[in-house]
């Protein structure tokens, strides 16, 4: 019922009494507004209540679900992604073609609960029979001294498991174990490194990398999200096997203490093969040497290709020549002073065996004949600051960025001060030390047209991006000079028909621990690129204390040691890499004519 705003009865009465009838209207109006606002208030309250209820239900649902998730046992999802959770924990490592280099295998660990043992003494002696490295008396003591739990062995073969089962003692128990397996044995051992068990429990044990790429890429290999996808390395298994075979044959033939070889793709920076000898079996990694007198390089664990920081000798000369050409100081035919011996202050710079190639020699011949004096004069034209900057741009001042845990530790040895005599010695590879990997990366920069690429052990999808350090024409000129070393210089034994090998030899005396150099201990390096007309690969061979005794006089220069080894390596590896030898093809045109 709508009440009128001006009820006639009251108005009349008000008029009679002389009151203002408008007041009545206002009063009624106020009352009506009050009623309206009451109604709206109630409706708003109801809506808010409903909203609160909805939110309450929403949060309650989430809360219950969270509580349920927290309190319930985790269960593998039944219908989704069958088997995804079963995949082995640690990712496999494969070569660039997907062949397995490291994988996992399920085996058993053996432990004992001595309290449950029926016959501790008999069990101990039988176990000692199965595992010769265990001592029966010691085992028995451990079984009987009251402890509740004894680890016996970390990894058992299936045959050993069967034999332990046959003992039949209820106190002997097995725990599942995932172990790392390197099916290729010693192959690429220095790249792979090794593994060990981390935290160990009865039901499982952590497998962690201890060296090489296993340790450097540990986080990636253990990442459960990537457990199913193997880590593809840039290594090619067949090439690696061949390189190791040739290298070890060369070391045996030349009575070297060790050696290293690297094959690198110049366009991607990928390391196709990397070998260091002597080597080891990562399945049964030897213990590192601990004695103080032992040099690290005595251990087979020492990766000469990356950790072997030595003076690399004349292989450095091409950098001086290339930089001088880049700066426009010389061209390949410029004659430079090569009159030996060269006197610089109190230093005397001599040539190999006191020869003199001078008085003048073209830059090409400085490289081909490996003239120290000629290179020294070129380096003096460049000057210390520019020389340092160039070597820095080639990566010689930093450890290699290789994906190996050993790589960051192998810092090049750089002289602290850089007077002009250091400029001279560095130009022919003395006074500063770097690893063969540094040298391979720098040669790759020359070979690929002047772009420095970071060497990598991981498979790359395409050509990598790098920093330009030389112009293309200078790089090509430098490769031509290196080719000259092989065609009419110190590395004539490197000629492999069809593959146009270009390279530079380097012979450096080994430094004594007490200072100075050994007279008859050398490190021989041959850094090469092939094919020279369109360089694809860098091949680097370095040998530690090699000596060629085939002639009447022992020969210790790289030309007689590292070079033939590298040549044989190229001859064997190039066909595997799919490179055709360049030969003149005759009668091509007559054939097409005959076809029709």
């Amino acid at each position, binding site marked *: 019922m709508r009440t009128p705003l001006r009820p006639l009865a009251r108005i009349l009465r008000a008029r009679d009494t002389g009151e203002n009838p408008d007041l009545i209207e206002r009063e009624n109006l106020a009352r009506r507004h009050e009623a309206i606002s009451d109604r709206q208030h109630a409706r708003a309250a109801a809506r808010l209540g409903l909203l609160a209820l909805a939110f309450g239900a929403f949060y309650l649902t989430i809360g219950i679900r969270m509580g349920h998730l927290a309190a319930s046992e985790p269960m593998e999802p039944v219908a989704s992604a069958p088997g995804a959770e079963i995949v082995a924990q640690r990712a496999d490592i494969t070569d660039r073609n997907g*062949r397995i280099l490291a*994988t996992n295998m399920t085996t058993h660990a053996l432990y004992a609960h001595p309290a449950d043992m029926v016959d501790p003494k008999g069990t101990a002696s039988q176990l000692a029979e199965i595992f010769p490295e265990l001592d029966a008396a010691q085992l028995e003591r451990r079984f009987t001294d009251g402890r509740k739990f004894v680890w016996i062995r970390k990894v058992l073969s299936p045959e050993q498991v069967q034999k332990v089962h046959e003992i039949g003692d209820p106190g002997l128990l097995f725990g599942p174990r995932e172990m790392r397996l390197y099916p290729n044995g010693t192959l690429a051992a220095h790249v792979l490194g090794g593994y060990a068990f981390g935290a160990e429990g009865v039901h499982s044990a952590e497998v962690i990398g201890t060296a090489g790429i296993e340790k450097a890429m540990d986080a990636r290999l253990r990442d459960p999200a990537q457990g199913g996808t193997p880590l593809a390395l840039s290594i090619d298994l067949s090439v690696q096997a061949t390189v190791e075979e040739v290298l070890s044959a060369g070391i045996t033939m030349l009575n070297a203490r060790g050696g290293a070889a690297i094959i690198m793709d110049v366009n991607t920076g990928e390391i196709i093969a990397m070998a260091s000898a002597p080597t080891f079996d990562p399945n049964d990694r030897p213990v590192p040497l601990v004695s103080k007198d032992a040099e690290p390089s005595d251990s087979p664990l020492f990766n000469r290709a990356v950790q072997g920081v030595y003076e690399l000798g004349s292989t450095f000369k091409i950098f001086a020549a290339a930089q001088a050409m880049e700066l426009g100081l010389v061209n390949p035919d410029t004659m430079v002073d090569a009159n030996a011996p060269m006197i610089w202050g109190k230093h005397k710079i001599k040539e190999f065996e006191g020869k003199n190639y001078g008085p003048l020699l073209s830059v090409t011949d400085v490289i081909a004949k490996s003239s120290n004096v000629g290179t020294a004069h070129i380096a003096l034209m460049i000057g210390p600051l520019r020389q340092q900057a160039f070597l820095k741009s080639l990566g010689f001042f930093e450890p290699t960025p290789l994906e190996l845990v050993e790589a960051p530790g192998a810092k090049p040895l750089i002289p602290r001060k850089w007077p002009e005599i250091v400029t001279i010695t560095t130009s022919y590879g003395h006074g500063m030390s770097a690893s063969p990997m540094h040298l391979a990366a720098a040669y790759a920069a020359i070979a690929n047209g002047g772009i420095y690429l970071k060497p990598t052990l991981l498979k790359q999808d395409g050509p990598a991006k790098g920093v330009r350090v030389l112009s293309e024409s200078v790089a090509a000129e430098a490769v031509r000079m290196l080719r000259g070393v092989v065609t009419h210089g110190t590395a004539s034994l490197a000629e492999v028909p069809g593959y146009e090998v270009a390279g530079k030899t380097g012979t450096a005396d080994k430094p004594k621990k007490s200072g100075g150099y050994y007279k008859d201990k050398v490190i021989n390096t041959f850094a090469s690129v092939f094919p020279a007309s369109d360089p694809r690969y860098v091949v680097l061979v370095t040998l530690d204390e090699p000596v060629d005794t085939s002639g009447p006089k022992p020969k210790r220069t790289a030309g007689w040691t590292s070079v033939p080894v590298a040549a044989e390596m190229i001859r064997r590896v190039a066909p595997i890499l799919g490179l055709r030898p360049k030969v003149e*093809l005759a*009668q091509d045109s007559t054939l097409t004519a005959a076809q029709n």
Partner: protein
Amino acid sequence: MRPVLYVLTFLGLIALGFWAYRENYATQTALREVRALQSEIADLREALSVQRAEWAYLNRPDRLRELAGVNFDRLGLLPMEPGQFGTPAQVAFPVPEIPAIEGPSDTIGGVTAVEDTAADQAEAIAAGTAEEGL
């Protein structure tokens, strides 16, 4: 009418209960089957990884090299050499067979030249293969 409706509802309820009961057990069976299959998959995966490892172990390069050496008499395998690359020109293509022409066939120019044409063809092809052999 109403009693009939009651009875029908009741029967419907029983039917639904029966269906739910069956579905429940069917689900449980399916779940059990999935669990069995999953453990089978796990076993097979493990076997697969063992076999892959074994394949890699048996095909390790030094073993293959040794086997190639042992079986040299039968297989005569040697390491790859640069000289083993060939060109398509060195492939001996099979001599194409020339279909025999039986009886004189009618051509536009007349029948007399038929035999000569066949002989010419054979000769041309023989010459071609001879040159190809070079």
